[in-house]
């Protein structure tokens, strides 16, 4: 049976924990709002980029001599897996789900006899995957999103990926991140970056429209510039989604933690009061029985 003092100390410590978790929840909520607007603002660029790429790929994609970033290298023996996680913890299952999914993917590829290289974005994923796949690690990126995700961050990653691809270090690149569905639900997503999956044509009319485009300079010239940028844009989008998901996951986790702390405080308070009453009663009995004995 804990003494009254012990209980008081515990109640106070849970109370201060609750203060911290509820503050973290508020911070995550405001960051989430900002991340969501950023993700929405980035959408028009990605959409238009996709439209232009679709038009170009439709007319050039299947031909000989198409850029390798679009058509692939012709083999798929070396895979580059880009795992996007967060730098900070305390966000529920956010990092664990990404890590679990990456582990599945990597193990699957290894079992097929493929070579796998890993690129890690975020500290948490790196720490959790190091034990199993430390030997496969390539570049790691950290400290993203301290002041929100910037396009320059995504560009730096994309440039690195492009350089590796051009040096022939891998054939297929996939990024794993959490797609933001709502503040309480995120979905682990694998997206293939290289070779770029050509979006299927929507209908015949679109096909006719595409055929009429003039290109300046040549189609290849444009594609060669467009593809690396598209990589950066896709990366940017993945990072934004991931960041929004992280904040959403943290908000939910902290909300739960705050609620649990509240329950615990209630429980402890009841126990504290009961103990106090029992003690008073005991003292009264002692006094009364003492008086009676006289």
């Amino acid at each position, binding site marked *: 049976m804990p003494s009254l003092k012990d209980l008081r100390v515990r109640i106070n410590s849970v109370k201060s924990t609750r203060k911290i978790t509820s503050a973290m929840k508020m911070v995550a909520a405001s960051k989430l709002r900002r991340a969501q607007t*950023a993700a929405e*603002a*980035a959408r*028009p*660029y*990605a959409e*238009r*980029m996709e*439209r*232009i790429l679709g*038009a*170009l790929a439709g007319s050039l994609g299947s031909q000989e001599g198409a850029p390798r970033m679009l058509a692939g290298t012709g083999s798929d023996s070396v895979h580059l897996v880009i795992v996007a996680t967060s730098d900070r913890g305390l966000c529920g299952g956010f990092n664990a789900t990404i890590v679990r999914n990456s582990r599945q993917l990597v193990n699957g590829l290894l079992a097929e006899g493929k070579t796998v290289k890993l690129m890690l974005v975020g500290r948490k994923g790196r720490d959790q995957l190091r034990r199993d796949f430390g030997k496969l690690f390539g570049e790691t990126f950290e400290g993203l999103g301290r002041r929100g995700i910037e*396009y320059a961050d*995504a560009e730096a990653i994309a440039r690195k990926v492009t*350089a590796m691809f051009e040096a022939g270090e891998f054939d297929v690149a996939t990024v794993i991140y959490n797609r933001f569905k709502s503040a309480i639900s995120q979905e682990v997503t694998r997206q293939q970056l290289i070779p770029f999956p050509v979006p299927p044509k929507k209908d015949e009319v679109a096909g006719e*429209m595409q055929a*009429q*485009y*003039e*290109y*300046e*300079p040549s189609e290849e*010239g*444009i594609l060669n*510039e*467009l593809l690396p*940028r598209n990589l*950066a*844009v896709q990366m*940017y989008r993945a990072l934004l989604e991931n960041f929004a998901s992280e904040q959403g996951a943290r908000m939910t986790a902290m909300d739960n933690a705050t609620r649990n702390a509240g329950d615990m405080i209630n429980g402890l308070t009841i126990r504290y009061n009961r103990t106090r009453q029992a003690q008073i009663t005991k003292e009264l009995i002692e006094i009364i029985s003492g008086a009676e004995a006289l």
Partner: protein
Amino acid sequence: MAETVEFELVSPAKLLMSEQVEMVVMPGTEGNFASQPRHAPMISTLRPGVIEVYADNKVTERIFVAGGFAEINEERCTVLAEEAMPVEQIDAAGVEARLKAAQQALDDAETPDQAKAAETAMAVAQAMQAAIGGAKAAH
């Protein structure tokens, strides 16, 4: 009011402009070109330079872009730019610094890739400088 095209300027971070305009002149890689209503569909790359928006045969807005892509068709003109800002917001001292940094990077470049990146940065800074010069001359 004459016929108009829907002009959109988009950067990765956000939609910068979306309005109806009469004519837009863009710095294409192979020479400047204009987008007017009922222009033939075209996709072109842009070099660093200034986009000029026209209304009533006069320039109403001058926007600097550091390269990008333009998609033009009969009723629409979409520009995808990585970096874009109105010419009057360019800070001369900042451009000077960028020019110096680019020059420095060019001198320090060890690999052809680095040299290429530095040259690109250099071209952007020079185009910025030219854009400010042009704006001053116009006043």
